[in-house]
C-alpha cells in the first residue's frame, strides 16, 4: 500500500538528506546508520555490486576510479562546457562524451549517464524513507540550487523518474530553507538565505507574509562555487608543498589524490571549531628510489581563510547584486539564514554578518533545513490544509535569439511565476519564409553566452521584404516551471508552439530503460537484504545448536529416544547449512523454524540436567 505522503529530498553535491511532514511536523529521516545526511556518493565494487552513501564513501580510497562523488556538478551540463572540463580534470573517476553531448561516467567498463548516478542516490534516500515509514513512497519534492538552469532542473527531474519517483515539484534550495524557517510561525518578515553548500552558492531574498505566503523577491548564485572549491584550494596548496619538498606531483596518483581530497575536507571541517589541525597521510607515495614518503602538514585556520578569501568575496559580491536587484536596502532584510555546510566556517559567518550588518540567525539547521522545506512544500501541495503558498520567481531571464546573435529578453529575471509575456518580432531577410525560434535562458546580451533550452521553426511565412512580416512570440511559464513558447505569424495567423522540455541529455527511451534497470537493481537489493537477514538468523541458530551438541549427546547417550532426536537435529542443521551455501532464501526460511525448535529442545535438555 503506497502512502500518499510526499518526501522531500535535498540532493546535495556532497551530502543528501530526506525529510517528511508527519502529523504536521516536518522531520528529517535518519538512515540506517543513524545519520541524518547521506554522502551523495556511488560506487561499483569489483564484484559489480552497487554501493551508495556512507558505504561508498568508506571504500572510496581503495576504489577511487569507480567511485563517483559530486555528480551534481555535471548534471544537465554539456560535455564541452568549461565547467565539465574543469570538474573532470580533478576527478578520480573516468568520464566520456555521451551520445547527446552529455557526460557519461565509466564504472567498471559500464557507462552511466549523470542522471542515472543521481538516481542511485535518490533511490537510496527513498529506501531510507520507506524503511522509516514501513510503506512504499511514490511522490517526492526535490531541491536544486536556485541558480540551476532549466536543463539542470530537467536532468534532476529525470533522475527522480529513473529512481521510480513521481517528482511533483522541483524547488530551490534557499527557498526550501526559508520554508522550514517560517513554516507555521505566522511571521511577517523579509529574510535573506545565504546558502553555501558543497558545490553551489545561492542567495535568495524572500518575504514571508500572512496566510503562509512565501514570496521570493530575488535570487542569484553561482552553480560552480562551493565547499569543493575550498577543498580544491587546500589540495592545491598541499600538492605544491609536497612538490616543493619531494619534487613529486601527487596529482599523478589517483589514490593519493583521493586521500588528499578526504584529508582536505576533514581538515576544513575541523578548522571550523579549532584554530589549527594537521594533515597526516603516511605512505602517501613512493619515491623513485622506492622509499615510502609521508605527507605531514600543520594547517591553521588563518591559512585556510587566506586560501579561500576570494571565494568568500565572490559570494558577498553576489549578495550585493541581489539586494540591488530586489531594490532593497540592507536594513530591509530582517533576518539572515545560513544554510549549507560551508556556513559553519567562522570567516563566512563573519563576512555575511558584516555585509548584512546583523548577526545571522541560528534558527535553521545548515544541513537539514533544505530537505525539511522540500517536505513542507510537498505536504502543502497534496494536503488539503493549504497552510502555505510559495510564490517563486524565474532565476534566469528567458528570451529568444535575434538578428546578429543577440539575446532578446521576454521574461526578465526574478519574475513571479506563473507568468506570460509577449513581444512582436519581424523577419530579418528578404523573402524569408521561415523563422527559427531559439529559446534561450540567461542574462548575457550575447545569445551564445546563454543556455539553449529548445528550438522550433515557424514556416509558411509570406514572401516579403525584410522587416515586414510580423511574428508575435509568447512565452509562458506555469506553476510547475514548465516553459511554453508560441510564435504566431500575424499576417496569416499561422501558429507554431513548443513546450520547452529542457534537454537533460537523455531521450525518453533512455530514461525509461534506465528506470527499469534501476527498478531491477532495487529488487535485487531488497532480496539480498532478505537473504542476509535469513542467513544470519539460520547461522546464529546453527551455531548455538552446534555449541550444545557435545553436552546434549552426553546427556542422552543412554536412551534410544535421545539418539533419534540427535540424528534428526543433525539432518536439520545440515539442510540449513546447505540452504545457506545455495543462498536460497525460501529454503533457509523453511529451515529456520526447525532450527529454532531444535535449539529450544537442546536448551531445555541442558537446563533440566544441570
Amino acid at each position, binding site marked *: 500500500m503506497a502512502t500518499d505522503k510526499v518526501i522531500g529530498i535535498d540532493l546535495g553535491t556532497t551530502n543528501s538528506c530526506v525529510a517528511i511532514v508527519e502529523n504536521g511536523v516536518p522531520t528529517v529521516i535518519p538512515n540506517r546508520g543513524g545519520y541524518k545526511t547521506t554522502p551523495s556518493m556511488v560506487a561499483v565494487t569489483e564484484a559489480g555490486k552497487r554501493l551508495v552513501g556512507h558505504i561508498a564513501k568508506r571504500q572510496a580510497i581503495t576504489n577511487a576510479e569507480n567511485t563517483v562523488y559530486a555528480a551534481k556538478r555535471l548534471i544537465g551540463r554539456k560535455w564541452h562546457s568549461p565547467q565539465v572540463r574543469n570538474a573532470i580534470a580533478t576527478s578520480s573517476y573516468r568520464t566520456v562524451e555521451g551520445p547527446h553531448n552529455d557526460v557519461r561516467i565509466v564504472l567498471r567498463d559500464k557507462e552511466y549517464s549523470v542522471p542515472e548516478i543521481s538516481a542511485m542516490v535518490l533511490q537510496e534516500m527513498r529506501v531510507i524513507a520507506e524503511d522509516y515509514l514501513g510503506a512504499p513512497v511514490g511522490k517526492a519534492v526535490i531541491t536544486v540550487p536556485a541558480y540551476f538552469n532549466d536543463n539542470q532542473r530537467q536532468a534532476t527531474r529525470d533522475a527522480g523518474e529513473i529512481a521510480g519517483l513521481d517528482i*511533483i515539484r522541483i524547488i530551490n534550495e534557499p527557498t526550501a530553507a526559508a520554508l522550514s524557517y517560517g513554516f507555521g510561525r505566522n511571521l511577517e518578515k523579509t529574510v535573506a538565505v545565504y546558502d553555501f553548500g558543497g558545490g553551489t552558492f545561492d542567495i535568495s531574498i524572500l518575504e514571508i*507574509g500572512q496566510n503562509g505566503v512565501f514570496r521570493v523577491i530575488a535570487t542569484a548564485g553561482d552553480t560552480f562555487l562551493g565547499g569543493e572549491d575550498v577543498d580544491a584550494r587546500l589540495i592545491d596548496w598541499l600538492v605544491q608543498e609536497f612538490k616543493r619538498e619531494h619534487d613529486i606531483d601527487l596529482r599523478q596518483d589517483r589514490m593519493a589524490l583521493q586521500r588528499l581530497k578526504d584529508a582536505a575536507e576533514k581538515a576544513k571541517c575541523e578548522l571550523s571549531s579549532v584554530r589549527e589541525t594537521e594533515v597526516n597521510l603516511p605512505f602517501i607515495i613512493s619515491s623513485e628510489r622506492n622509499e615510502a614518503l609521508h605527507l605531514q602538514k600543520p594547517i591553521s585556520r588563518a591559512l585556510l581563510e587566506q586560501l579561500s578569501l576570494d571565494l568568500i568575496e565572490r559570494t558577498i559580491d553576489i549578495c550585493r547584486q541581489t539586494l540591488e536587484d530586489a531594490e532593497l536596502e540592507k536594513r530591509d532584510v530582517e533576518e539572515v539564514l545560513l544554510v549549507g555546510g560551508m556556513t559553519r566556517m567562522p570567516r563566512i559567518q563573519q563576512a555575511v554578518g558584516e555585509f548584512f550588518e546583523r548577526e545571522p540567525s541560528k534558527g535553521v539547521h545548515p544541513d537539514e533545513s533544505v530537505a525539511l522545506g522540500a517536505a513542507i512544500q510537498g505536504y502543502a*501541495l497534496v494536503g488539503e490544509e493549504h497552510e502555505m503558498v510559495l*510564490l517563486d520567481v524565474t532565476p534566469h531571464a528567458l528570451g529568444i535569439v535575434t538578428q546578429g546573435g543577440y539575446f532578446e529578453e521576454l521574461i526578465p529575471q526574478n519574475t513571479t511565476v506563473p507568468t506570460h509575456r509577449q513581444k512582436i518580432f519581424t523577419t530579418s531577410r528578404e523573402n524569408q519564409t521561415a523563422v527559427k525560434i531559439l529559446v534561450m535562458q540567461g542574462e548575457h546580451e550575447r545569445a551564445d553566452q546563454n543556455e539553449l533550452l529548445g528550438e522550433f521553426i515557424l514556416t509558411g511565412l509570406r514572401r*516579403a*521584404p525584410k522587416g515586414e512580416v510580423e511574428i508575435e512570440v509568447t512565452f509562458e511559464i506555469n506553476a510547475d516551471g514548465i516553459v511554453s513558447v508560441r510564435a504566431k505569424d500575424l499576417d496569416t495567423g499561422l501558429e507554431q508552439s513548443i513546450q520547452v522540455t529542457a534537454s537533460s541529455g537523455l531521450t525518453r527511451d533512455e530514461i525509461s530503460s534506465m528506470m527499469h534497470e534501476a527498478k531491477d537493481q532495487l529488487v535485487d537489493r531488497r532480496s539480498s537484504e532478505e537473504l542476509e537477514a535469513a542467513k544470519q538468523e539460520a547461522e546464529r541458530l546453527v551455531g548455538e545448536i552446534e555449541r550444545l551438541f557435545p553436552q546434549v549427546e552426553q546427556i542422552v547417550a543412554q536412551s534410544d529416544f535421545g539418539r533419534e532426536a540427535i540424528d534428526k537435529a543433525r539432518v536439520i542443521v545440515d539442510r540449513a547449512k546447505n540452504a545457506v551455501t545455495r543462498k536460497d532464501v525460501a529454503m533457509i526460511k523453511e529451515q529456520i523454524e526447525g532450527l529454532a525448535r531444535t535449539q529450544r529442545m537442546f536448551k531445555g535438555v541442558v537446563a533440566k540436567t544441570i
Partner: protein
Amino acid sequence: MPSIVGQGFLNLPLDAREGFLLSRIDGSLTEAALTELTGLDHAFVVASLDKLWSLGLIDFASEDDAPKKAAPVLTTRAAEKAVTSFSDAGGDLTPEQRIWVEATSIELTTCTHYELLRVPHDADKKAVKRAYYELASRCHPDRFFRKDLGDYKLRLEIIFGRITLAHDTLTNRTQREDYDRYLADRETARSLEHALDASLIEDEIALAEATVVESSRDPGAPAPTSIKPNAFDSREAPTEPRFVPAAASSQTLLARRLLGKRPGSIPPPAPVEPSAGGTEQAMDSLKRRYHQRTESARRAQAAKYERQGEEATGRGDLVAAANAFRIAISLLPDDEELLAKQGAAQKAADAILCETYERQANYEEKAANFREAARNWCRVARIKTADAHAHERAANALVRSDGDLHQAKELGMRAVELEPQHVAHRVTLANVYLAAGLPLNAKRELLTAKQFAPQDATVSAMLRRIAEST
C-alpha cells in the same frame, strides 16, 4: 424585463442605473432610443453600454454581419452568459470558489489596481503586500495542485497574473507614480467632464434665476446665499462623479418649484397683487418697479458670477471660471465682454481636459491597452479638431483594438486632410481600409503617399502586399 437574475449576475459590478439600462435593452432599441427612454445622460448611456459589452452582457447586433461594433443596435446576449458559464466544467472547485473566480474575472476588465487589491489609494507598501498575499493564497495555481479545474484554470492564471501586476506596480515607487499619474489624469478628466456637464450648469442657472426672482419679489429680503461655497470649484469635485448627475440640491429643488418649469427658462410673470382700490397707474408703476428690481437683481447676480469667474481664473480653476461665466451669460445673454471671457475660459478648460486625455492615451498605448487608448485619443481629437496627430493616433488605436472602423476612417481622413503631405497619416488610413477589407481605397491612399515620399519602405511594402493579395 429579461430574466437575468442568477448568482453570476448578482456578482457583477453594476450600479442601479446600469442595471436599469440593462433591463431596457431589448435588441431593437438603439443607443439614442435608449437614452431617450431612460432619461439618462447620453454620455452615461454610451459609457455604460461599453461597460456592459466589456462584461459580456450585451452585444451589438449587426444587420449584415458587419463587425459588431459597426451597428448601434443592441441585443441581449445578456446575463445568461454569466449564469450559464456557471454550469461550465469547473472540476473540483467548490461553488464558492467558482463564484469568486467569476466575479473577479469580470472585475478585472474595469477596476484599478487599488480596487482589485481592495486597498485605499494611500495604502502603504505593507498594506498592498498583505492584500496581495491574501488574494494570492486564494488563487495561486498551487492551491489547486493536480486538481481538475476545467476552464477555470486559465481564468485563475489570468487573475493571478493581474493581481501580481497590481502588486508589482504598487510596490515599485516609480511604477506606482506613473500609474497614479495615470489614474489622477483619469480622475481629473472625469471631474472636469462632470464640472463642465451642461445639466449641472442648468441647475445653477435655474438657481441664479430663482435668486433674481426672489430678490425682485421682495426687495427687503436679502439675496439668498444659496450657492454652495464650492459648487464651482472643480478641484473639490466628488471623487467618484463618473456618471452621477448633479445631485439636486435643496436650493435647486426650491428654484424648480418656484419656477414651476424645467430650469433655464424665463421666469413667469410675477403674480399680480390684488389690491382693493388699485388703479391702472398703480399697476403700471408696480410693474415698472418690479422690472427695475428684476433688472437690477439680474445685473447684480451676473456681476456676482462674473466676479466668481474672475476669481476662479485668478486661482487657475478654469473649469469653475468657464462655468461661472456661462451662468453670467445666461443672465445677460448679450454681454459681449462676458462672452469673450467665457470663450477664453472654456478654451483653457478644454485644453487641460485634453492634456489629461492625451497623457492617459499615451500610458494606455504603452500598456498595450488600445481599447482605452482609442477612447482617449478620440476625445482629444474631438477637442483639438485641428490636431492631425491626435486623429491619426485615434484611428490607429481603433484599428489595433478592433474598434469602430467607420469612426477610424473618419479620423484617419481628417488627419490626412489636416496634413496631406504627412505619410504616416496616409499609412494609418490605408491600414484602416485594409482592416475594413477595402484594398482599393488603401492602394489609392498609399499611391498618394508615394508621391510625397517615393523612398518610404513601409509604403512600398504595403503596396506590394496589396498587389500580391489582389
